């Protein structure tokens, strides 16, 4: 909690590090944040990044076109490994999409003011991650044009979907989460959109921001309703943070495959999701604050806190790994025992050990304050955690499926070039959306930062 040396304070004061840099007024906060969108020259780096990201997006949509034309056989999925990169990446993206709502909703309810400067952008990240995550289950089916059969709707078949199937639960969980996340994010944006409307000089922009600001006039009545609505949405979102990944984990836990069939999965997946979500927020915010000079808004206190959450959730996840091993032994089931052995010594063992290294061991460095305050090291750790969480999903899905009950049916899974182009494509798409967001919307909540201005005076 302390970073007093850095701020040059005497140790005995023991104040928490500020959530906003010193010397800001309402005006300067607004100026600074809105200028990113309205007046500041778009840096060359943005164009370069956008070009690269768009390349990825093009690759994604190219792959999707070929996928629809050829069938999912262009990927490496097979029998026994019916789910490969498609579901690995789905779960990975859903996990990344966790931090946003957690930061916005839960931390709002707990009155954690430090959330303010990172929530907007974490929410955006959530939305974009969910968009990517949603692509996979939609496209991974053999006949994507019939995906709507998973929705309960009145139809001439006279058929409901199978409510016993976790995949149907998934449909509800993901679509609810995506909807609420979007509403929450958009609701949060409304006052800022009005600010941009008022400050924009370009008439077209004024109109556009005006449309999306939904007639916000900054009246007390508006603010009153606004706060009520925002709080209610936060309360609605809070259970979703837990439910989404719990339901996703049930896709596995409800199956009978050794390595999937575990009661521990829901909490273990939720912790993993928050872990990866915060890792992604760090991965994005460290370069962002540097590039746009937002060090005063996204302060070391934010960074430090996020690192701590990563440490805690990382420990929960690591505990999950250990429990998996324990249960493999304790179950007394030869299939579970073999699964554990196969993970540690089988053909995919290097990935398992890489996972333990990435998610179990390296995050332990976050115990050290020096590490938490070293942006470069933190950035690298956050990347490693992202990789680790991807490996976790791969290990859970592929190594469990590839050797289950009958040795005669065992097989191997190798991704194809199209698995990779799709995966890299989604990263490109994600960055594209994020870059557009940075360019056209206030990346930090202006009005909420203004509420922090008194703290700036203290600082």
């Amino acid at each position, binding site marked *: 909690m302390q970073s007093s040396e850095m701020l040059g304070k005497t140790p005995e004061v023991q104040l928490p590090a500020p959530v906003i840099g010193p010397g800001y007024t309402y005006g300067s906060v607004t100026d600074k944040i809105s200028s990113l969108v309205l007046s500041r020259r778009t840096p060359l780096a943005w164009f370069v990044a956008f070009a690269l990201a768009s390349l990825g997006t093009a690759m994604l949509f190219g792959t999707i076109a070929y996928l629809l034309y050829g*069938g999912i056989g*262009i990927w490496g999925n097979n029998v026994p490994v019916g789910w490969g990169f498609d579901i690995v990446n789905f779960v990975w993206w859903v996990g990344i999409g966790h931090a946003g709502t957690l930061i916005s909703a839960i931390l709002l309810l707990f009155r954690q003011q430090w959330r303010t400067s990172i929530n907007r952008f974490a929410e955006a990240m959530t939305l974009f991650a969910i968009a990517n995550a949603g692509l996979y289950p939609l496209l991974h089916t053999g006949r994507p044009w019939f995906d709507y059969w998973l929705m309960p709707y009145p139809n001439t078949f006279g058929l*409901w979907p199978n409510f016993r199937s976790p995949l149907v639960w998934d449909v509800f969980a993901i679509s609810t989460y995506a909807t609420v996340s979007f509403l929450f994010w958009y609701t949060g944006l409304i006052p800022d959109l009005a600010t941009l409307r008022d400050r924009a000089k370009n008439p077209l922009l004024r109109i556009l921001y005006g449309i999306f600001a939904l007639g916000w006039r900054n009246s007390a009545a508006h603010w009153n309703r606004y706060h009520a609505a925002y709080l209610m949405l936060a309360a609605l979102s809070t259970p979703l943070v837990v439910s989404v990944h719990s339901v996703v984990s049930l896709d596995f836990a409800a199956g009978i495959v050794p390595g999937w069939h575990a009661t521990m999965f829901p909490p273990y997946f939720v912790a993993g999701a928050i872990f990866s979500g915060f890792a992604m927020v760090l991965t994005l915010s460290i370069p962002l604050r540097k590039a746009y000079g937002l060090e005063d808004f996204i302060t070391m206190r934010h960074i430090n806190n996020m690192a701590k959450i990563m440490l805690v959730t990382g420990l929960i996840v690591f505990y999950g790994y250990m429990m998996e091993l324990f249960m493999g032994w304790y179950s007394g089931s*030869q299939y579970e025992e073999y699964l554990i052995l196969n993970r540690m010594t089988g053909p995919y063992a290097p990935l398992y050990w890489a996972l333990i290294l990435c998610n179990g061991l390296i995050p332990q460095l976050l115990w050290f304050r020096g590490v938490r305050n070293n942006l470069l090291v933190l950035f690298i750790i956050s990347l490693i955690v992202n990789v680790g969480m991807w490996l976790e999903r791969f290990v859970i899905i592929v190594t469990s499926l590839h050797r289950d*009950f*009958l040795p005669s*049916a065992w097989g*191997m899974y190798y991704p194809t070039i199209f698995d990779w182009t799709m995966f890299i494509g989604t990263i490109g798409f994600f960055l594209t959306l994020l870059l557009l967001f940075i360019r056209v919307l206030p990346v930090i909540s202006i009005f909420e930062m203004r509420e922090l201005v008194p703290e700036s005076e203290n600082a």
Partner: protein
Amino acid sequence: MEKEALDLSAIRARLAQAKGRRYWRSLEEIAETPAFKEFLYREFPQGAAEWTDQLSRRSFLKVMGASLALAGLTSCSGQLAEKILPYVRQPEELIPGKPLFYASAMTLGGYATGVLVESHEGRPTKIEGNPDHPASLGSSDPFMQASILELYDPDRSQVVTRFGTRISTWDAFIQSLQTELDSLQANQGAGLRILTGLVTSPTLTSQLDAILAEFPQAKWHQYEPAGSDNARAGARLAFGRDVETIYNLAKADVVLSLDANFLGEGPAHIRYARDFSDKRRVWTGQTTQNRLYVVESTPSITGAKADHRLPLRASQMELFARAVAEAVGVKVGGAELAEHADWIAAVAGELQSHRGTGLVIAGNQQPPIVHALAHALNEALGNVGQTVLYTDPVAANPVDEMASLRELAEDMAADRVQLLIILDRNPVYEAPADLQFAELMFKVKTRIHLGLYEDETAELCQWHIPGLHYLEMWGDARAYDGTVSIIQPLIAPLYDGKSAYELLAAVLGQTGVSNLDLVRGYWQGQSSGGDFEARWRTALHNGIMADTTLPATSVSVQADFGSAPQAVGPQSLEIVFRPDPSVWDGCFANNGWLQELPKPMTKITWDNVALVSPATAERLGLSNEQVVELRYRERSVRAPVWITPGHADNSVTVHLGFGRSRAGSVGNGVGFNAYTLRTSEAPWFDTGLEISPTSEQYSLVTTQQHFNMEGRELVRTATLADYQARPDFAQEHSAGEGKHISLYPEYEYDGNAWGMTIDLTTCIGCNACTIACQAENNIPVVGKDQVLRGREMHWIRVDTYFEGELDNPAAHFQPVPCMHCEKAPCELVCPVVATVHDAEGLNNMVYNRCVGTRYCSNNCPYKVRRFNFLQYSNEDVPVLKLLMNPDVTVRQRGVMEKCTYCVQRINAARIEAKKENRAIRDGEIVTACQQACPTQAIIFGNINDKGSQVAQSKATPLNYGLLVELNTEPRTTYLAEVKNPNAELGGKIS
């Protein structure tokens, strides 16, 4: 363009008469032969003009014009007309939607096996065994099942061609043939050679005899690449005459196989498998089992079923046979095999104590002496007349085929062959390499090939006549015991094909006689009065001709044959050639079903390999998929290595039938060609092989990568003694069995409840079920790259597990179809209810509803669900549409599929039962796998009917379910495997 002899004096005269300067291009021009005039007139040589791929503008317009002019006449063509009108006059017995079954016969290696062909509105779709036929008894094998695909193979040759590419006609061919024959007539047909496979057909034989009578100097050669020369020579060696050896396994209690894969190969293997398994089945209450000893070099399914199996180099088999003979007291010049003394003593002891119920079988690839020794043993042991019968040869004209082919080759080399007619054989590909048949072909003036494909031989022939598939033609053939079957067509020839009968008739000048008249005419001629028409119809209906089985003859073994043991050569590496279990001698190379069929002992598909034992691989430093160069007698071939447990040490097996260059789009370039190493002196095995490893790797695909049960109770086995001591041995496993706990209410079955048992004691792993299922259920072929990705589509697979020592493990087979679980894990997880439980306990797959999440497959512990990752069903080739079973949906890309217990057959039986207002009888529904199974290891029926076979088998203590500890409550269960090892040899399965 037929060439006419040039009259040189006339040419001279013509040149002398010419006024002014005259340039001439060729002697033909001056002679003004009609052919040359035609050449000048036509833009392209005859036959090449219209139909080549690159049409000239002019010929295109000509064809277009003709097509337009003749468009109104299309209904006269032989094409299948698409009629959507109902029949005005209903053909007798034909009810649309109801298949009819016709008896016919399929030949392989010349021998017939009776078939029943399912025909849907005049289109054959499925082959079953003919229950009345002695070689089938209603069962089938993979070749028989897959032969339907051969009929509809789009790569079959479709028109008469000259010089490979020029399209011609049968009439043009007849003309040309007549010219050739006329010129041969002068010297009594010297120079005319006919090459066939082994001929058992009485009609064909009579035609050949007639040709030989008309052309006394002509010669008829027979060659089968996987034939039984050795057996014939062995009989001659032992008895001084040719006989056919027939085994009666129904009476055999102790069987010794000397490198004989009698359960998997040979004209009677289906019958032998049935008789063998009848003596082995224990769930019916039978308390005894036969005992099988197998000595073999290459692991085979027969070896896998053995109670005792000894891997032995093929070249040592003679020593082994002599040692057994010695121990039994047959004086033939004994030998010793010290390292296997206890084995030999045990076998000899058993054979002696089972006089008249023992049996010694020698394998076709073993030299004559081993066959003779087997005959001597059987005679000495009193088995003749009991377990062994001898008849006159089934082949019409048994010859030493290798000698016959060599004679042909020598004659060709010496320019003594002018006209070579090759019927349904492919010597350019399959003749031994030392004969250099391909080069010799060019020394023959006129070469004619008749066959289903434009193969390697057709390529080197001037004339290729498309052959007829057995489902398109009339014919006849004999089974292993001499029984004659009439081959009757199920469909009019799809293309302009001709049968061998028609070709030979043309040689005899009988051009106008139809295929039917040829065959029927022959039999009418043979008829000794009485009502021929009735006999003929009965023969057609039953699929066998009454009273044609050859009677047993009595022969006795001559004294002192081969009394001196052959000196065993240096212990150098041995090469063994075997016909492939999937594509046989190469004739099925273009059959995708068979190419994709996993070979029983290795599960390799789409390739052949060099099989070596683990010890040999270790000694030579070889690893799986490593490419090696096999060098033998100055010839070499590159082959990938596959290490197979149980192979004889210091020996390498290569399978024939691969590496074809003109098999068709499926079979071209698959595997390596082992014929390039094969010589006429040692067609089956020889020492002197050299192996040099290369650094190259070759990717082989198997459908099973783990042959170890990992300590799981998947195949449960016991010895007969154990079983009798502890009848419940199969129940002594699996914690949690029998405790059915479920959140969901139990299903209630008031009516039928379908179930299946699979008897592992009698399953011989022959794969007939897999292909039968593929044929019945329209299962697509996916190709090597997709199998490599793990996407093969077989609904029933045969798992093979090895157990015990690496050098000679016991092998177990376990067919795995869908288990139709009572509490099916797949049903629970499907989000769109595409896989559902029905009122009779079937786990149904609703293709139309499936969106393809593959969750069901992930959750299936048996991994029997198959997914259409790509568009596997061929929707583009029209002729393949004829193949499809109209009662089974053809699945689209993106849809899951799996075994349905042949629900279409269940429903057909249900309709019949309802019409007669009765319950479905036990045995009325026969699933495709069950019907094909030669050993009746698969039992299907209503488990609610306590009297049904399936309910009774499930009530035995041998019955167990696979992975029941998962609470899946499978409807398909297994009957544990019981083997009968000899207590003297430790009483353990080895």
